[in-house]
């Protein structure tokens, strides 16, 4: 198991520098001739994800965490035609013709959502030829889109499904750059193309990064930024250009398209959410002011190991913190990380999301949440199981702008459902069945309902339990 993949890759700037002369392209190459603004196609690589067939299914006698903080004992969840059709107590009526699963001793949650993944753009096997997550040739690359790097055959998707119950995830560019490019939200369903995995109508995000990584990557090349003040300066200059671009675009006059500026203008329009890698409290506070200066909003601070120090500020600004339970000490800006981060945030009333940034921990987000809950309990903050499940379901869905579609077990939402063989906040629990849009995509008791990527076909361990 290689730890801190993204980080260790960043720690080898020579390898990146070796490519930079050939990869770096002049800005004009990414700008194409003007078109009429109205003809602009905002979705040129549209989702072709299709819902797979499912049968109307009801799980009864089951403990339900609905994803929005409610717990129901001996409840019923039923779904049909890809949508949740009802959730309730033991008396809930189940229509004729529904396949019934006895959930005695089991638990149901909405599908787990990882707001921070590099599956596909840093896939396994983690060979250099697969290292597609950081366009580390310029500190601002808003023009790149993560979906153009994601390899849909990454074996990691299957592990996240089978062991983690992950049904949707945001794949982000890495953190080498201040502005790393667009993210993509995926359904965790294998497809031949990345378009086939794209979550229909999910808003785009844009990755930004504070702190050590950008200044190290570019400082080591003798370029700006080499300091934290350089980080902010380059960001501000770029936002000024984006404001000018937006003004010109909105003027109705002819203008030259620039795909990087289109992304930044999309942020200023409020169409694209900011997903901001940031460790230290003081830097998050500066980013919040920068966002106000230029008129955009930060959806979520990622990693955010010092969020607990400014939980009130984050609450008041309506910003989520996507955090690990207990990562710490691997770099200077992670030195003050504490396991109570999530609990202090929650107790202060700020939004908590548990994220992975890791192809292994994406398989155990439920366990990471359970550890964070326990650390909170020991400092006197009693956070219910149902609230903690929200950190993995509704909260990431909301931060991604897809909470109207998934993230909780509400009638009419996508039937993204995990049936666990025990309480998912126990170390002994694993997914038993996972449905995505009402289709059974993983079944622990049926080896045929276990995806095997092309890469693993014909290899040792093909189709094995993982």
């Amino acid at each position, binding site marked *: *198991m*290689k*730890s*801190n993949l993204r*980080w260790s890759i960043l*720690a080898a700037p020579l390898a990146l520098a070796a490519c930079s002369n050939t990869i770096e392209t002049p800005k004009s190459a990414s700008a194409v001739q003007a078109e009429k603004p109205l003809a602009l196609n905002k979705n040129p690589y549209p989702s072709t994800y299709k819902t797979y067939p499912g049968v109307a299914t009801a799980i009864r006698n089951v403990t339900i965490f609905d994803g929005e903080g409610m717990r129901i004992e001996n409840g019923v969840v039923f779904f049909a035609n890809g949508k949740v059709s009802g959730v309730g107590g033991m008396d809930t009526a189940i229509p004729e013709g529904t396949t019934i699963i006895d959930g005695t001793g089991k638990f149901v949650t909405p599908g787990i959502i990882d707001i921070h993944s590099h599956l596909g753009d840093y896939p*396994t*096997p*983690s*060979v250099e030829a697969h290292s597609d997550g950081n366009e580390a040739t310029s500190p601002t690359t808003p023009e790149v889109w993560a979906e153009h790097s994601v390899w849909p055959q990454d074996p990691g998707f299957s*592990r996240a499904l089978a*062991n983690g119950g992950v049904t949707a995830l945001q794949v982000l560019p890495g953190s080498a750059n201040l502005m790393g490019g667009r993210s993509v939200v995926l359904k965790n369903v294998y497809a031949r193309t990345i378009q086939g995995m794209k979550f229909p109508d999910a808003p785009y995000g844009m990755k930004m990064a504070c702190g050590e990584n950008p200044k190290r990557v570019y400082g080591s090349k003798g370029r700006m930024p080499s300091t934290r003040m350089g980080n902010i300066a380059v960001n501000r200059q770029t936002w000024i250009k984006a404001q000018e671009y937006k003004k010109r675009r909105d003027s109705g006059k002819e203008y030259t398209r620039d795909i990087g500026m289109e992304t930044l203008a999309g942020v200023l329009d409020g169409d694209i959410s900011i997903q901001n890698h940031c460790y230290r409290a003081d830097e998050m506070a500066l980013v919040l002011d920068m966002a106000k200066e230029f008129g955009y909003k930060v959806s979520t601070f990622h990693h955010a190991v010092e969020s*607990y*120090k*400014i*939980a*009130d500020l984050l609450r008041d600004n309506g910003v989520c913190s996507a955090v690990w339970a*207990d*990562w*710490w*000490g*691997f*770099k*200077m800006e992670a*030195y*003050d*990380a*504490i*396991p*109570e981060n999530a609990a*202090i945030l929650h107790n*202060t009333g700020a939004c908590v999301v548990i994220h992975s940034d890791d*192809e*292994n921990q994406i*398989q*155990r987000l439920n*366990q990471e949440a*359970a*550890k964070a*809950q*326990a650390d909170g309990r020991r*400092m006197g903050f009693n956070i219910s199981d149902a609230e903690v499940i929200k950190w993995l379901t509704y909260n990431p869905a909301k931060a991604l702008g897809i909470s109207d579609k998934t993230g909780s077990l509400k009638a009419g939402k996508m039937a993204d459902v995990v049936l666990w*063989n025990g309480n998912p*906040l*126990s*170390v*002994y*629990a*694993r997914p038993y069945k996972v449905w995505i849009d009402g289709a059974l995509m993983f079944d*622990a*008791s049926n*080896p045929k309902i276990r995806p095997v990527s092309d*890469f*693993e076909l014909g*290899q*040792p*361990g093909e189709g*094995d*339990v*993982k």
Partner: protein
Amino acid sequence: MRHFLYAAAAIAAFATPVAAETIAITGGRVVVGDGSAPIDGGTVVIRDGKIVAAGTSVAIPTGARQIDASGKWVTPGVFAGFTRLGLAEVDAVNGTNDKSGGRSGFSAAIDVAPAIDPFRSPFAVNRSSGVTRAVVAPESAGNIFAGQGAIADLGADSNPVTKARAFQFAEFGEEGAASAGGSRAGTHLHFRAMLREAQDYAAGRGTFDDDLLKAEDAKSLLSVLKGETRLLIHVEGANDMLRLMELKRDFPSIKMVFVGVSEGWRVARELAQAGIPVIASALNDLPATFEMLGATQSNIGRMKDAGVQVAIGMINDRDSHQLRYTTQYAGNIVSLQYVPGATGLTWDEAFAAISSVPAEIMGVGDRLGSLKAGKAADVVVWDGDPLELSSAATTVIIDGIEQPLGNRQNRLRDRYARPTEGDLPKAYDR
């Protein structure tokens, strides 16, 4: 003067522990750690730093300090099977990172013992999570032999090393090949040639045929060759393990232990036959490299079923800071019992894989790793099932001495439990 002040500060932070007391821990669910079933309502008696007895009908010595463990679990401390504990404070801050001594020009002779710093925060953080002993290995750089590792205790004192030069550590597979010229052929050649040079050294020859080793390196390898020092080898792939087992036939006295071992299940029968114990990464299930194509979490269970001696380790997996994951990893291996088609360990086996088994594999099972009479009194009282995510250590005893459980993370937690500043800045709040 500066040195004096530093020493004074260190003494304040790590007050000399009180002499080992006589302690009786009563009423708890006692886990001996040898794979046997837990004993409800058991008593554990500690005297002079050693376990006197653990079980039911154990007499409590007069004058013993009693710790009531009713409703709690009492276990041997966690023995972390493979770590870089104490070799780094902040991994990415070079001045605090002593994991690799590869650029020193030496290889096998490197001895991590003096670099293990008990004042580094991973000691206190992992101690408070019930980890009491750890296998501490160097990282390799530029040579298949990384140097000599140690067994450490996590006690809050100034002597972290339980056993220095407890083993030699080597890299095979992809990482080994990279440091032996780019090919596994080079790894095997280097291995054989270096051991021959160790024999040259033993024979009193001042110069070595291939000039691969310095005299100090040769001296260290000689003890490996004689079987006096274990050789821990990081190897993941099935073929690499098979070829290493062939190599062992040519060097039968070498005591090999395999570390990592993601594809161990594919050669489990051969490992059992060769009598090679393993310190396995518990949850590797991705083809992170081409030597891990067969990785599955069922690896440990399958090897155990084939008769391989298996402990849990965490090579290259946050191994300087997160030893506290060891119990979670063991719990996950237990959970596999409830997954159709998967192979895990029973709870009792899993706990043994993080206590007595690693101690036995490292050759210190006679004095560490369980609550059997005569063993060093490394005892942890937990507020629940120690493998469960909600549980925590409430008492940690190392060598019979009750340990402080505070750490820097707790201080930050307490300062910011209510983040808003009060009458004075947070900097005054302590």
